């Protein structure tokens, strides 16, 4: 029995085929593997597509939020700059405070004036609501924490604020030289350098420089030399940023020759005080004379 049962498991086939069946089996297994791989990659593809769609949606939502936030902060800034102060003091008190502040800073600036140096002026004139906006950088002492810039005009402070997103305090001023003048000024310390005050002017003065201010009040004096603002030390007349004097557009109210004379005096004074300019001028003159002598010979 055992022998007969064992003999029944012996493969007695001769296997005379030419291998077509084996190849077919191999091909079938390859095809099924390919199909599996295709299914797997397609599923992965689908997941990735879903992730991409989701991420794009999130990105767009975030971008929209950012745009809204930026617009909102811009609107708030504009509103703060244009709206009148909520708690306004009486004009007399304002003038007193203003003059007191001017006096205080004048003293400090007179001692610090030598320390104030050429400061680069980045005048970026932006057309915002048809108003000229200029930005002037003033160098101050690091210990000076006031937000007062002496530019020759009288200003009435009407606000100061600090926000979470912009912790650097900024003060808002309005020109007090003439009631009809609508020039506003924002003063803020530079983020990069705390000793630099950034004054942003909006609008155009419709009046001349206040001539009643004494020339020896040691206000900060700046003249524009191309892209730079240079302090005009000890000039005999009150100076103002040339950028602002250029913006004056009502000649009927302003004595133009007087302003020009003032500017010329100021520039001459500042240039003659500048040792570099004197040296450069001397070098130029001597060079010219030397050339003339050479040609005559």
């Amino acid at each position, binding site marked *: 029995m055992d022998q007969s049962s064992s003999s029944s498991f012996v493969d007695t086939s001769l296997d005379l085929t030419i291998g077509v069946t084996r190849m077919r089996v191999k091909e079938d297994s390859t095809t099924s593997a390919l199909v599996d791989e295709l299914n797997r990659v397609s599923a992965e593809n689908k997941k990735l597509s879903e*992730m991409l769609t989701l991420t794009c949606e999130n990105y767009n939502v975030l971008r929209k939020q950012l745009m809204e936030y930026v617009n909102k902060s811009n609107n708030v800034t504009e509103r703060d700059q244009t709206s009148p102060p909520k708690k306004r003091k009486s004009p007399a008190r304002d003038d007193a405070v203003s003059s007191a502040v001017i006096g205080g800073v004048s003293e400090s600036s007179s001692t610090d004036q030598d320390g104030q140096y050429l400061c680069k002026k980045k005048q970026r004139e932006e057309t915002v609501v048809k108003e000229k906006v200029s930005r002037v950088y003033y160098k101050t002492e690091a210990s000076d924490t006031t937000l007062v810039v002496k530019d020759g005009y009288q200003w009435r402070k009407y606000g100061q604020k600090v926000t979470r997103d912009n912790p650097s305090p900024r003060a808002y001023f309005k020109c007090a030289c003439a009631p009809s003048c609508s020039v506003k000024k924002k003063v803020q310390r530079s983020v990069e350098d705390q000793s630099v005050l950034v004054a942003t002017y909006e609008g155009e003065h419709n009046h001349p420089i206040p001539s009643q201010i004494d020339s020896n009040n040691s206000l900060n004096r700046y003249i524009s030399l191309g892209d730079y603002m240079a302090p005009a030390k000890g000039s005999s007349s009150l100076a103002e940023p040339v950028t602002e004097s250029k913006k004056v557009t009502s000649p009927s109210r302003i004595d133009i020759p007087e302003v020009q004379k003032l500017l010329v005096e100021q520039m001459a004074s500042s240039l003659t005080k500048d040792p570099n300019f004197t040296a450069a001028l001397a070098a130029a003159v001597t060079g010219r004379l030397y050339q003339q002598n050479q040609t005559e010979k």
Partner: protein
Amino acid sequence: KDKSASELREELNRVYSENKKIKEMLETVCEKYYALHHHLE
């Protein structure tokens, strides 16, 4: 089911290529998203 192995390979290559493109796009969008998020923070 009726596709041959070569056709399947061709299809698979196409899906691989598509997959790669989607991954690149996803990477770009993720970078932009995180940059924006960082900027907002």
